[in-house]
């Protein structure tokens, strides 16, 4: 399966939900928010959201800004 993660093409074998994806990148405990195809997915739904072929996933965090 192929999808886009923060603008980069990413390939994985087999099914993957958002929760497992974040674990792979050691982000499960970090304060992040996720949008898939421009729709925000609440943290409570990470485990329920199965990533689909071609999904565009954005994982964001708070940074300094004005």
């Amino acid at each position: 399966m192929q999808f886009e993660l923060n603008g980069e093409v990413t390939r994985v074998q087999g099914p993957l939900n958002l929760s497992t994806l974040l674990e792979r990148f050691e982000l499960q405990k970090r304060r992040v928010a996720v949008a898939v195809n421009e729709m925000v997915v609440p943290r409570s739904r990470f485990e329920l959201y199965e990533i689909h072929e071609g999904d565009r996933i954005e994982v964001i965090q708070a940074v300094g800004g004005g």
Partner: protein
Amino acid sequence: MSGSYRLGDIELESRLIIGTGKYSSFEENRRALDASGAEMVTIAVRRVNLRERGAGSLLDHIPPDRFRLLPNTAGCFTVKEAVTTAQLGRELLGTPLVKLEVIGDKQTLFPDTTATLEAARILVEEEFCVLPYISDDPVACQQLEQIGCAAVMPLAAPIGSGLGIRNPINIRIILESVEVPVIVDAGVGTASDAAIAMELGCTAVLMNTGIAAAKDPIKMAHAMRLAVEAGRLAYEAGRMPRRLYAQASSPEESLIEVR
């Protein structure tokens, strides 16, 4: 100091809102924040760097339980980008507040007024507490108020320029045109600029570079705190009328005579 004010449902005492960008470290940022006395800080949302995840987090130094976090949509050039960024900011920080920015031009960072109005409409509909960055345009400010924004935030000069209050007349007209709080956002370069904004009657001042790019950001943060307080007090006190000619302060009668 002189009373609290409200942004939507949120009550604030400090009339200084500061940014968290451009500091040399999280520690410096936090020290400047403490020196400024600000209760509310702006925050940007950006992609997590998936290769370098080790760096500390801004929120470790600016804990959300101690400060009001105001996520922004800085860097967004379209309605869709701004709306999605606002939604992500709300999910990330658990706040309905959003500093809405829809930029129309890369060099000046002036806002795209049409897009800002459209994005504001969508976000108000989604029950955000929208604080829009906008040109010092009284008509646009009235329209944003009509849409239901909780405040209007006209620029005083281009973002990061430090050029000060370039058009105090327009800021005054905006103050007379809307009933929601007017917050000068962008352009403040030094303490006197902040005082001028407050003396005009603005509810608050939002700044980032004016503090972060000072030689000593912590000292400047303190200066800004005092300037905002002084400007607000002067506004409430009501300044004396300007006169063209002198008027003696000491009695003009009973002077001694010398021969």
